[in-house]
Structure formats: structure tokens, C-alpha cells
């Protein structure tokens, strides 16, 4: 089985199997045709397959007559921010986010700097399937312009948005692990602009990931041990395109990425009350925090594209997922790891509290996440089948199946990026959460065979 996932905001697969130059070119040609030969930004994370996809994308885009501003290695949120600055018609980010090295993907971004929505995505896919791409003649080929001085611009804008003075005064010591991804070295500029002392680990943009580029506790051991040695105030982990983060408290506790959203919401909603958007798999912590601030909570399917679309449609004040991605439209409607780290530093500085104290203020839940391989041919029917465990209880089917009760919930859904079924449960007690997951895993492990 060759793995290829075509979604509304891009295409993802395994390099050498499905991700080959022709496929990348066909998609980039479709996107260039969709953009009507206008200006487009291209950036990538540090994966070793990155240059293959990058060169294929540039070649294809100029062949459709698009002018390309090439940002080189660049975190997705910064590409998204620069789209508006350069008044581009769209952008391509070459990154597979938290997936391991053998994966890569193209993510398509519209002129507002957000992932393509359903309608835009379907239009690109129609062009792709039709295979009728714009072919510019030699005098109308696009040009490629290398852009290299955008970081200071972005970080100045970020500094203006945050309470930079408070952060600077606090003289924080911060450990950051960008996992040798797109955030590598760029965190140096971040620290200079924000005025904190940076202790970096895995800060080489060489594309070799020392651990899975997913910000979660099991990957945070390195940050936690360095943090204790240097007595840092906080530690952060980034995914490979710096869109999502998890953090480590000053006492060395590696916190679930689920804490990122409620921690920020608790602070940000005070000043900016309004609608909050999250997905069905995110922790109940955000429900309690939003309720406490009298802010409505809207739940959508898992995926940045859905969250951001809802954020825009509902005119919300923030969106976030339990996986550690936060978007604040007042800055930009995109999951932005630098904004997220900056806000956490601001909270620590303004409220003059340690990270562990801030975390203690949050309602404690325990979340257990499991996944199991399932052949793509029967993945949806297996998920549906799992309903039978809860014969007589109300089931929410807006994204897989979700069953809630007063102590917690269980969510069973198909992964958007891999042929996997994800089983996520939350409960006030860790054992109970574990039991909820095991009940489902035992049931479906027979079905997936």
C-alpha cells in the first residue's frame, strides 16, 4: 500500500513512493493555474527531501507563469504572515509538520495567509484531476526572486503585538528545541528581538530529526534535562514547521501539548473576550476556561484548515487545537509557534508567575492518545463500527465518533495524514482515561486485521 493523502489544503505522502517529482509538479502546476499566473511565495522546512520538492515546485510554478518569491527554509507561520506583506496571491509551504522524515507534503495557502478552504481546495483538485495546466511560453515564464531579509520584519511585527517590554524586563532564560526543523536558527532571531536568553538544543537546520518532530512530552526529555541544568524559566518544543508547540515547566515537568491552548486562553480572553474555536479531540480544559470567561466555544473537525475557517466565519478571537497550535486573528489567522511562545513568555512576565503556578491554575484532566494502523479500504467502517460499544448512548458523529459524559469523553477518528485510527480519551483520573482507550482498542484491534 502506497501512502498518499490528498486533502483540501494540500498533498502528503512518503518520499520515493508517492511523493515524486511528477506528482509534486502536477500539484504545483494545478495551484499555479488556480492562481492565474500571479505572485506566489514558496518556503520549506529542513527535511532532506526538501530540495527535491522545492525545485520541483519552483519549476512547475514558473512554468505556469507565476512569479515566485523564494523564502528558502522558512517556518509555515512566517510564510503565512509574509503572503499579505508581499500582496501575493498564495503560497506553498513544503513541510510534513509533525510526521517523521520519510514524509513530506505541500500545503497550499491563499492570499489571506490561511490554508485553502474547502471551495478553494476543491478547485485546485479539479484542475489537478483535469490535468489542464497553464503552460507559459518562454516570454511569459515566471521569474524567481530570492527573499532573505524577511525575518526581522516578521519579528518586529510580533514584538509590536506582544508586551515586549515586560518580556525583556523579566530577563527570562528559555530552552527551545526546534528539532533541527524550520525553526532552527530562526529562534536565535526570536530571542534577540524579544530580549530573552536562549539555550537552544537541536538548533541545526540540517533536516535530521533527533526525535519525532512532534511537540509532546515523550519528545521533551532533552529540553527537560537541559532546563534543569541551566535553571531555565521555561522550555519549548516545536514541530518541524514551527506552527505548534508544547512546553516544559521550570520544575522540569514535561507538560502535555493540551495545556498550550487553555494556558493562553485563560490570559488572552480576559482582555479579548469572544468566540473560541477548537476541535473535537481537544481537552476539556479549554471548555472550562472558556466557560469561566463567558466565552462561547465552537468545536470543529480536526485540522488547521477547519479551525481557521470556523474562526473566520464565526469572527472568533482565537482558535487552537490540543496538539499545540494556536491562532490569534488579531496577529494572524494561522497556527504560529512563535506567537504562541511569545504569549506564554508574556503571561509569565505580566502575571509574574512561574510556569508551574500557571499550570496549577488550570483544571487538571488526563488525556490518553493512541493510534492503530488500519487499511485505508475499511478505515471508515471500522470507526463507525466502534459505535456499537456505546449502543444506548448519544454519539456525536461530526468527526468520527465522540461519546461524552460528566467525567470525560472518548473520540475515535481517522487520521487526516496517515492510514491510522486515532483513539483519544480524557478523564479526571488517568486510570479511567486509560480504561476508556483500552476498551476501544480491544474492540477495533480485531476489526483492523
Amino acid at each position, binding site marked *: 500500500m502506497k501512502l498518499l493523502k490528498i486533502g483540501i489544503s494540500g498533498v502528503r505522502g512518503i518520499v520515493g513512493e508517492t511523493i515524486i517529482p511528477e506528482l509534486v509538479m502536477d500539484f504545483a502546476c494545478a495551484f499555479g493555474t488556480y492562481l492565474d499566473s500571479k505572485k506566489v511565495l514558496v518556503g520549506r522546512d529542513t527535511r532532506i527531501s526538501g530540495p527535491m520538492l522545492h525545485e520541483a515546485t519552483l519549476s512547475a510554478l514558473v512554468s505556469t507563469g507565476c512569479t515566485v518569491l523564494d523564502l528558502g527554509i522558512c517556518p509555515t507561520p512566517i510564510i503565512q504572515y509574509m503572503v499579505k506583506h508581499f500582496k501575493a496571491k498564495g503560497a506553498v509551504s513544503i513541510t510534513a509538520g509533525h510526521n517523521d522524515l520519510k514524509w513530506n507534503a505541500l500545503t497550499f495557502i491563499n492570499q489571506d495567509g490561511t490554508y485553502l478552504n474547502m471551495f478553494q481546495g476543491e478547485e485546485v483538485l479539479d484542475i489537478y484531476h483535469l490535468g489542464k495546466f497553464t503552460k507559459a*511560453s518562454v516570454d511569459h515564464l515566471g521569474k524567481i526572486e530570492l527573499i532573505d531579509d524577511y525575518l526581522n520584519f516578521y519579528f518586529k511585527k510580533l514584538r509590536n503585538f506582544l508586551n515586549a517590554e515586560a518580556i525583556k524586563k523579566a530577563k527570562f532564560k528559555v530552552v527551545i528545541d526546534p528539532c533541527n526543523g524550520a525553526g532552527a536558527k530562526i529562534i536565535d532571531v526570536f530571542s534577540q528581538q524579544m530580549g530573552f536568553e536562549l539555550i537552544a538544543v537541536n538548533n541545526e537546520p540540517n533536516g535530521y530529526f533527533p526525535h519525532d518532530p512532534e511537540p509532546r512530552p515523550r519528545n521533551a526529555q532533552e529540553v527537560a534535562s537541559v532546563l534543569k541544568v541551566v535553571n531555565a524559566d521555561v522550555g519549548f518544543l516545536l514541530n518541524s514547521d514551527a506552527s505548534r508547540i508544547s512546553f516544559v515547566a521550570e520544575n522540569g515537568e514535561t507538560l502535555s501539548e493540551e495545556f498550550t491552548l487553555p494556558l493562553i486562553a485563560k490570559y488572552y480572553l480576559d482582555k479579548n473576550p469572544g468566540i473560541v474555536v477548537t476541535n473535537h479531540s481537544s481537552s476539556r480544559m479549554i471548555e472550562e476556561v472558556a466557560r469561566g470567561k463567558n466565552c462561547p466555544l465552537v468545536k470543529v473537525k480536526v485540522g488547521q484548515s477547519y479551525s481557521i475557517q470556523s474562526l473566520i466565519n464565526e469572527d472568533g478571537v482565537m482558535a487552537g487545537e490540543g496538539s499545540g497550535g494556536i491562532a490569534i486573528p488579531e496577529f494572524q489567522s494561522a497556527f504560529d509557534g512563535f506567537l504562541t511562545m511569545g504569549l506564554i513568555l508574556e503571561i509569565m512576565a505580566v502575571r509574574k508567575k512561574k510556569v508551574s503556578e500557571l499550570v496549577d491554575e488550570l483544571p487538571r484532566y488526563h488525556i490518553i492518545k493512541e493510534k492503530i494502523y488500519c487499511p485505508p479500504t475499511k478505515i471508515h467502517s471500522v470507526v463507525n463500527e466502534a459505535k456499537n460499544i456505546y449502543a444506548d448512548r448519544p454519539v456525536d458523529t461530526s468527526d468520527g465518533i465522540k461519546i461524552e459524559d460528566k467525567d470525560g469523553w472518548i473520540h475515535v477518528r481517522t487520521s487526516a495524514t496517515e492510514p491510522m485510527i486515532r483513539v483519544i480519551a480524557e478523564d479526571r483520573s488517568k486510570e479511567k482515561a486509560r480504561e476508556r482507550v483500552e476498551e476501544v482498542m480491544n474492540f477495533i484491534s480485531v476489526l483492523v486485521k
Partner: protein
Amino acid sequence: MKRATSLRISVSGVRGVVGESLTPQLASKFAQAFGTYLGRGSVIVGQDSRKSGTMVKKAVISGLLSVGCQPVEIGISPIPSIQVLAKESRSIGAIAVTASHNPKEWNGLKFITKEGLYLNYHQVDEFLDIYHQGEFSLVDVEKYKTPQFKEDSTEPHMTKLMSYFNVGLIGQKKFRVAIDCTNGAGAVLAPRYLKELGCEPVLLNCVPDGSFAHHPEPLPENIIGLCRTVVENRADVGFVQDADADRLAVVNEKGEPLGEELTLALASKYILSQNPGSVVINLSTSRAIDDIAKEFNVPVIRTKIGEINVVEHILSQEEKPAIGGEGNGGVILQDIHPCRDSFAAMGLILEYMAESGKTISELQDGIPRYYMIKDKIQGTQEKAYSIIRQLRKKYAGQGEISLLDGLKILFTDYWVHIRPSNTEPVIRLIIEAKSRDAAEKTVEFWRKEMSEAAKWK
């Protein structure tokens, strides 16, 4: 009549029209096939100055990376410099993004082995089989290489040129040389090369931006600008390169174009005067070379049309030939590299001028005069062979007949060569006679003979 297609896949590589047939997808697939054919290793990627070069090059790099090769990007470079670099470096081959002398809408790929040679017929067969079968050795991410960049890609070529020529002798003469690079790849090396030979270059169309100031083929009608530059600047000689700098045409000090056939004739005459040996040329090259060879009592070896055929014959001779080439201005000097090389041709002509103390027009006078006409009629390969079959019967015994490549008949005062083109649906008719008048009359006669023969069946 079949419409001429805008994609040509032949022994000299792939050529297509950008915006029609030459897409990123096509270029990348050919690069994947070439990488699969070579095996994993570093592959040089060079380009001429065409505006579509970046688009095609990036597609090639992407294709090479996907099959585990390490692309070494060298930017705009003359094709002989790419060939020398392929041989001198540790690469396993090279791809040149060029459409040679085709108009600017075209681009293409030429495939070069680690010996710095184009693929020969057998290699092309193997390579195209891989392309057509479409089974490329795509590699996992662990085997991916990082693309590299290399500056000074012309250095190995330059070193060879400088050590071959008598720079001191040429330098003494302080020649003023008008050079027209057609805004092609030659522009990155020609001005510096001439300066290092001690000449004073007068530059024309020396910006390698692909805006071909005239048709990028060094034919007399395309080089009026150079002729004027020679006169206005009182230059000793004028040179014009084609877009990828393998061919050269010459303008004398009076501003008269010599005709591309004279380039190899002048170079051969000089080489043989210094170092007698055989001369390897293709069937369509001027008889002037035979006359010159006779003067020095050396043999002439004729080959099929196609640079690789000449090169293979040069390399397979037991005794090293003195020189080889094609009448279209392609001079091959094995001591520098067995490939057509406009820089080697310039060096030979400048050294000839310096050594003899004569002007170009005086040297031109020493070359037997012939007049060549290259004509073509529409027709498929099949029709060409039918015509050739008829004419061969009709002219049996009337001249010296060669069937090496189409039909060539050598008469006492002229020769005729009829063959199907490798790249277009046309039949080529080439005539060389002693005067323009005779040549024109002969062409008329043979056009009639061909249309008569076509009717027979």
C-alpha cells in the same frame, strides 16, 4: 504533410518547445531516467543562457535528487566546458540544459557520460529504454543527497586551453579580436579567454541572458553585426559562437564572413602543418579538407553525420588523429577534449595567424575554394530511402558512391549528399561544387532528380 512536432528525442538528446512539449514533468522524467541509467553519484547540471534555463534546470535537479543522485549545479557554462568538467571531476555524468542553435522558444537536455562524451548509439538505446519503461530507481529519504553548487566550472577547460596553446606567441601579436557570443553560454568564458591569450577583445552580444540578438546559428546571414564591428574597430579577426559555444564561424579583417566550412579548414591546415596525422570528418564536410590532407599526405576518415560518430572514430583510431570535426564550424581537438569546442577553434586560428604572420584573408586564400549549398525537401524517412534506392541504381558506376549515411556520390567536379534528417521530417540535399554558379545549377538538377525518383516506386 505531417505537422512538425515540437518534441524531438534523438541521439543528440531531447529538445522541445517551452510552453508546449518541454514541461517540467518531462525534463524531470528524463533526469530520473538518466540517474537510473548512471547509478547513484554526483551529476553535473549546466545550462546555456536561455530564459527557460532555470525552469528546466530545477526540474532536472528535482528528478536527479529523487533517484539518489547528487546534482552539482554549475550555472551557465559553455558545453565544451561542461564536457571537460564531467571528465576531470569525480562526477558520474552531466546534463546540459541547452537547445544548441535552436530558436529561443526551444530548450532541451544533452546527456554526457563521465568521460565527458555524449551518449553513443548503444548508450542512447539503453537510456531511452529506461525512459520508456518508466521504471526509475526512486530512493528512500535516507539515500537522498544535498544539491551542491560549484563556481568556476570553466576552470578545467581553461587550464587545458592555456597549456595547449602557445600563449606567448599569440600574446606578442596583440590581436584585436571582435567576439560575438550571441548572448549565449560562451559569454561567461570568451572575453576572459581572449584576454588571457593576450588579445584585445571587442565584445558584441556578450551578456549571457538568452536574448539572442540574432538567430543563434553562426551562418553568414546571422552575423552582419559582427562584420560591421570588425570593420569599425579595425579588428584582426571576428569570431561568432552558437548559443552553447561548441561551434564557431570566422569573419576576416575586411569584415567578410568566411562561411562556417572554413573554420575547420583553417584549423586543419594549421594543425597538419605542425603535426601531421589523420583527419576525421563527417560525410557532409567540405572537400577542401581532402585537398588539405593531400597536401600533407595524410588520410581522411569520413563518418556518419552526428558529433558522437566523429568522436567515436577519433577515439577508435590506432594512431591518434591530428584533428576532427564537422563542416558546420565544429572543431574537435582531442588533446584538449574529444568534443566540438569553439574555444579550441579560436585558439588554433589565432595561433595560425601569429605563427604565419598572415592576415585571415591571406590564410583564407590558401584554402581551396568550394561552394556548398545545403537544401532540403519535405519528406519522411521512408520516402528518403525510396528516393535513395532509385538514384543509387541510376547512378551506379557514374561516380564514387558511399552509402554510409544516405547516399553520397562523388563526381570529379562536385559531390552530392542526400539523407533523411534525424531531427525533422525533411530530406537533406547537400551539394558542393567549385563555384557558386555550378553549385546552384547542380542543386536545381538534383532537386529534379529527387522529385522524379519520388514518382517512380
